[in-house]
């Protein structure tokens, strides 16, 4: 058996999406845990095409992470790459998604089932991390700005694609915010692409979190501060994108 497939078989399944299956595993007997993201074969695609597309995706995600790391954007480190098997190994973040911490429920769990207990759970959850909501929003805005200043566009900015690590899991005992899931990321210097990133996040806030408006305003304020003179062109494009979005929703 292929060794990387054996590695997956010995790991704990975490979740299964349309594009990738996620596992929590270890590389050797004393290794720290890591997240293994397996882009499995798509039955409906031609095998050769499928293999090269998969390789390109794994390489693309790894390169985007590398660019972020070098630019000082807070992302998990790369631990293992087997592009021919479609597997990317990423530093394990011991924490929760921002979506969960803001009371938007767990990824993949329907909002309705989770609704009742969320309010209190979420207060407790954030308290455990020692970060206030406003501070969390500020950090999100700052990390996105750092990423955009490095001309990296995330492509799928949602609160599920951000995680807060427990202070106890950090070498400096600080809670740390991480941007994750760079599967759709690309390089672009265009203000419009950055504005779309922000718009996608604004919509994600609106659809999963009560109190979304002030929360997102907190994100934008920190973003603006960090972007400095690069904020204005993005702001203009964001207004355009919002307008187009509204028109589209009136039609459809």
């Amino acid at each position, binding site marked *: 058996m292929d*060794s990387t497939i054996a590695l997956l078989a010995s790991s704990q399944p975490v979740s299964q999406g349309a594009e990738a299956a996620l596992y929590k595993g270890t590389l050797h*007997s*004393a290794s720290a845990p890591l997240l293994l993201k397996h882009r499995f074969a798509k039955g409906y695609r031609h095998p050769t095409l499928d293999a090269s597309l998969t390789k390109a995706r794994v390489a693309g995600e*790894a390169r985007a992470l590398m660019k972020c790391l070098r630019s*000082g954007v807070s992302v998990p480190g790369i631990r*293992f*790459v087997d592009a021919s098997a479609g597997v990317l190994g990423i530093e394990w973040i011991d924490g929760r998604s921002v979506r969960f911490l803001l009371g938007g429920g767990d990824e993949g769990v329907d909002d309705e089932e989770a609704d009742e207990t969320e309010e209190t759970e979420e207060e407790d959850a954030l308290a455990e991390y020692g970060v206030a909501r406003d501070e969390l929003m500020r950090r999100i805005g700052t990390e996105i700005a750092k990423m955009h200043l490095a001309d990296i566009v995330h492509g799928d900015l949602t609160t599920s694609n951000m995680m807060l690590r427990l202070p106890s899991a950090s070498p400096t005992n600080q809670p740390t915010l991480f941007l994750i899931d760079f599967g759709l990321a690309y390089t672009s210097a265009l203000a419009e692409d950055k504005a779309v990133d922000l718009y996608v996040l604004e919509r994600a806030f609106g659809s999963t979190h009560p109190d979304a408006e002030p929360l997102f305003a907190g994100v934008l304020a920190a973003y603006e501060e960090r972007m400095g003179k690069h904020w204005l062109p993005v702001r203009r494009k964001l207004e355009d994108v919002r307008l187009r979005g509204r028109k589209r929703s009136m039609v459809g």
Partner: protein
Amino acid sequence: METFTYSHFPSASSIVHIAFFTHVSNAKALRARIINAASLTGKQGDDERERVNFAFVDARPVASLLHLQTAICQAILSETQDVLRTKTVHSEILWALNPSHNITEAIRRYGVSDTTTSLLVVRVTSPDLTDVEARMKAVVDGQLEDLSALASTTDWATVKKYYKLAGEDALKEADGDDVRERLVIDSIAVSTVAMKSVMNT
């Protein structure tokens, strides 16, 4: 010496022994011996090659145990997939540690040199090989240390140079704080090694 098990790799490459020596006094002779072993023929050659059948890694430009282990894992993976860029899994570890695709440079930077005084010795093998620590001690004159002592030998300026980190925004974030800066350097070095197979430089 510490031993690590990689249960997903084929048995012949599933065990990794790592030892850390400081105060190494025979680096020059060891280097000559490694070069010489490659050209010996017959049973004599095979025996000598077995005696130096290790990856000898200069510890100075190694950022952490994780940095080394990431290179080891990617090197074994290349071996099992039959895509080694160098002759053996042990030389592949040196290649994996260096960010460029230049084999000579990797050996010059990460291999044993005449001035090496701290040395990481690695053996990738099957569960059947015993006496590995004795075999390592037989070729290295030095003081065997705990792997945790590695942190005190790292030459951070060199790691920074090899990985072209000067002026990188990530280091500015550390804002002159040595501890934070080292964490950043280590994190980038580890990630660079892990993704080398998909980096086109």
